[in-house]
Every structure is written in C-alpha cells, then in structure tokens.
C-alpha cells in the first residue's frame, strides 16, 4: 500500500512536470491548412484531416490513431496527387499521403535533426523542405529520398517561394536567403533586422520579394540580388507572410493593424485600420478586397479602400492564428481553443456555412 502511494505520487509528479514541458499536440501551436477544389486539408496536432468542402464532413484522417507525429504546417498538394506534410513531432519526419485516401505513400527515409514547421515547396520532381534545424532538405518527389541538403542558418519556419530561378527562404536569424538550385549554393542573403517567421511574398513578375519581420517592418527586396528597395514601418511585429495583389501589398501585425502598401514605394494607402486583436496569419486576398483573422476569434473583410465589407466582422470563436484559405466561394478558418477545428465562411457575406469538429 505504502509503495503504491509513493508510486502514485511519483506518477502525479511526472504528469505535472510533463504537462509543464508539453512540446506538442493540439493546442501547442497553431494548425496549417490548404485546400483544392473538393477538400480542405487540415494539419492540426497529431492528425491530418481531409474535409469535404461542400458540407464539412470528414473524408479521411491520418494517421488512424495518433502515432507521435505532430502537424502544424500547411499540407502541400502536389500535381501528381500527393499531400506532403512535415511533422513537428520528435519523429522529425516528412510524409507523403495519398490525396484521395489519406494513406501514407512514403515517409522520407532520412531523419532531419529537428521539427518541420514550414511547408515544403515542390518544383518539378524535387521537394524543398526547410527545417527547424536550419537546413533546407531537397528530396525526390516520388520517394522522399534525400537528393541534397544545404545548411542555411537558424530555424526555418516559413515555406519557401520561387520565381523560377531562385528559391527564397526566410529565417528567424533575421536574414532572407536566396538559394540557387542549380549551384546548390546561397546566391545572396540580406539582413532585414528582425526574425522572419513566415514566408516571403513575390511580386507578380517575380522581381521583388516582400518580407515582414519582427523589426516592425515590411521590406521589399530585389529578388535578383537581395538589395533592399524600400522598407515600410508597421506598429508591431509582422508575423504572417504579406499578400500581393497587383500593385498592392497587404500585411498585418501583432499590434492588430492592417496595411495596404503600394508595391512600388511602400506607402500605406489605408487609414488606421485596427480590427479587434493581434493578427499573426497572412491577409487573404478576395476578389473584391482582403480578409484577415484576429487572435480574438473574428474575421474581417475590407474592400480595396479599406472600407469594411461586413460591418462588425464575423465572430468565429476561439483564438485564430493561422492563415485563412480561400476555396472557391468559401473562406476556411482554423480556430484554436474551441470545440471545432475548421470553419467555412461564405466569402461574400461572411456568414458561417459549417463547422468541422474533427468527428
């Protein structure tokens, strides 16, 4: 009896300390989301879900039972019907799932040193997967075999983008890197003064790179050589990737402000627009404006002049940190700290169409 009591106390201590040190699972960080014409793909904690867009029903989940993987980055849909998702669990794995069934096609047969927080980029037959260990891993699309890797620097959390010549990678070490996939070398790097936790955005012609940073700035860089073209001040840290639409660069900060910068000069065209809370997700460009979600659990849409499209926004609930996704006529939002994992809004009216609870 005495022994049992002691073991119980030790186990209770274990649970308490483990809870303090929790490094994964649902709620430990924010989910990742992507969509195609039929389904949304949600990476949320230990599971990846496919959810039917028409009614919010679950199509499949991966894995069948939690297996130690933790998924936070937006899954990537490949042209050949794969869904790529990196794990932020201690497995440090990158997985290919069958888009239709959710069955595992391959698990990358190498082990990164750390978590995958960034979504990978697919170019042709290669996957470019940045890792928290500071390395860009390049894998074969069909099998996940490592082709080559390039250690860049500190943690890489943003999905890379490409203009067809260079691959642009952001880092928490305050630098933006351009990697030449031909030479497998860093072509240039530029210090933007603060950590860059999300992706850069490219101008429509691929000549300019826009980067938000913790330095309370949006920076425009020449994509060819990394020279800074202009910088624009924000009131708080810019967490999410900027969104480009023609000559406008939309961005938002964790102070809760939304900006509409002119792409050529970095002038903010909008008056003070501050919805109801901090913004970490990227703005989502709609047909007639832009949509943002706040940590307070609300979605707001503005037209190109900054006038609210829906007077009081749409109350979604929970806390929202992830970037929303446009899927046809629906806006998909992934709140945390609520009973539902995914919410679909009508992109015209902002009304809630359905909520997905994971069941």
């Amino acid at each position: 009896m005495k022994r049992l009591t002691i073991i119980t106390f030790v186990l209770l201590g274990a649970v308490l300390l483990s809870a303090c040190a929790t490094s994964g699972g649902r709620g430990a960080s924010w989910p990742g989301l992507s969509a195609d014409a039929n389904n949304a793909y949600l990476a949320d904690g230990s599971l990846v879900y496919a959810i039917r867009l028409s009614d919010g029903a679950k199509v499949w989940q991966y894995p069948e039972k939690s297996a130690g993987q933790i998924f936070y980055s937006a899954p990537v849909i490949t042209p050949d019907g794969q869904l790529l998702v990196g794990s932020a669990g201690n497995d440090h794995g990158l997985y290919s799932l069958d888009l239709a069934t959710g069955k595992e096609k391959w698990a990358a047969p190498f082990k990164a040193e750390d978590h995958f927080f960034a979504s990978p980029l697919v170019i042709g037959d290669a996957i470019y997967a940045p890792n928290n260990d500071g390395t860009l891993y390049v894998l074969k699309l069909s099998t996940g075999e490592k082709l080559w890797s390039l250690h860049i620097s500190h943690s890489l959390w943003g999905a890379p983008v490409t203009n067809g010549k260079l691959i642009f990678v952001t880092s928490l070490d305050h630098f933006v890197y351009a990697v030449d996939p031909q030479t497998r070398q860093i072509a240039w790097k530029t210090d933007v003064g603060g950590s860059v936790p999300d992706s850069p955005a490219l101008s429509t012609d691929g000549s300019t790179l826009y980067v938000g940073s913790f330095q309370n700035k949006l920076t425009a860089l020449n994509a060819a050589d990394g020279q800074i073209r202009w910088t624009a001040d924000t009131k708080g840290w810019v967490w999410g990737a900027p969104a480009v639409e023609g000559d406008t660069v939309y961005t938002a900060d964790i102070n809760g402000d939304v900006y509409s910068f002119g792409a050529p000069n970095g002038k903010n065209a909008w008056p003070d627009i501050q919805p109801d809370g901090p913004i970490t997700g990227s703005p989502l460009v709609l047909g007639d404006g832009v949509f943002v979600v706040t940590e307070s659990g609300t979605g707001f849409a503005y037209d190109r002049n900054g006038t609210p499209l829906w007077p009081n926004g749409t109350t979604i609930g929970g806390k929202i940190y992830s970037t929303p996704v446009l899927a046809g006529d629906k806006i998909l939002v992934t709140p945390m700290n609520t009973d539902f994992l995914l919410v679909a809004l009508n992109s015209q009216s902002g009304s809630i169409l359905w909520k997905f609870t994971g069941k």
Partner: protein
Amino acid sequence: MWDTLIINPFTNVLVLIYTAIGHNFGIAIILFTILIRLVTWPLNGQQLKATKVMQDLQNDKEWQDIQKKYAKDREKLAQEQMRIYRERGINPFASCLPMLIQFPIIIGLYQSIIRALATNPLGLLQLARSLYPFLNSALLIPLNSKFLWMDLGRPEGIPFPGGFTLSFLPYGFPTLAIIVAVTTYLQTKLTMPPPSAGNPNDQTAAMNSMMSLYMPLFLGWLVLNYASGLAVYFVTSNVLGIVQYAMMGRVNWRNLLPGGSKPTPSKGK
C-alpha cells in the same frame, strides 16, 4: 495571474542574464538557477532544520513508545503526539511551509525556461509577449540555444558512431539524461537521513528509499524526451542541492557506500 506574477518576471530575469553574459543560454540557465537557489536559501535552511527536528523525533524513545502503545488507538496517539509537540515546542508543519512557498518558485523557474526556449510558433508568440519593453525582443529573438554540444531547445543525444540508431534512443547516446539521473540519485542518497533503529515502520525512510530509485529514473526519462535546457536546470539544481546540504553539514556520505545507510540508534528523552 500566474504568468504576470511568476513566469513573466522569471523569464525576463533569465533573458536579462542571457543578454548580460553575451547570449549564452546555457550559462544563463545555470546562473538563474543559482540565483533562485540563493533567494530560496533561507527557506531551504529553515526546511532542513525543521526536517531534522522531525527526524530526530522519529528516533526519540518516548515518541517510539507512544507509537507502540497506542498503535490501535489513533485518536489517543494523535493526542499524545500533539502533547509532545507542545511540550518540546515543535511545529510539525514547519518543514512543509518553506517547501510550499518554494514549490511555485521551482515550477515557475521550470516554466520560464520552457517559455524562453520557445520551441514552436505559439511558444515564440508567448515569449514575445512575456518580455518587458526594456529588453529589445526584436533584436534578441531568436535566442541562441546552443550550449556546449547541445541545442537547449531539443532533447540531447550524441549520435552513435557509423550512423547506428536505436528506436528508443532517437537522439543518440543520452549523455545528459544519464548525468541528470546520476546527480539526482546522488542528491537523494547523500541527503537521505539514516533510518531510525527503533522504528521498523519509519515511513520517511521508506519514502526516501523509493524516491532515490524513482526520481532519477523519472527525471532521466523527462530529459530524454524534452528540451535539454531543462536538463541543465536539473543538473545545476541537483549539484546546488548537494552543496547546500554539505554546507549545513547534512550530507551523509556513508549512504554512497554499500550498507552505508545503517539505522541510527534511538535516543532517550
């Protein structure tokens, strides 16, 4: 409330130390643990003294006699125990109070290390919000988590030679987990009082004996799976614990020898 009063101040002090010593997070954890130990030193001392009084009481003949005499009458036993406490001016809770005060501090220290390590996006957002304005968080982040051969934000392990892997040791040879387990074992053993000779049912001794086995295993397991920054804290804390006991003359070196933890003879009043 907990964040405002405990975790945020702790995190800021930790980051302040990190900044002052040239961006070495491992040294910052060690210095911060020493600082907390110094702050709680009087409480620890008070607790140790009170514990010693209670342990001495376990070996006291009158105390043992009433245990035997009223073994089947709980109420009477309690009355007699209270009488002895009163007569000798002993507060039976004197050893608990300092521990209760220290407990939130230790948990806060532990949580502030986890917060400062910010191993995922939400963690980084929480860290950013925890830092006071005088710390230029935009320049400070990311904190340099490299220390010796470790990345303090990740579980530690030295890769096996030749790419050899073991599924239950995914990070390689767990040096730090072993050091944590050994220092925890040493601390528990060295600070364990000898069981009382006249009291075969000495619960404290039984508890200590079990703890000396389970705690090293548990903390070693924790270190295997969580950020190695925590391991630096555990090792520092264990070593400082031994030092403090040694300075108070309470380290029982004989416990390390086989059969060293022999019962102490009971004393009369």
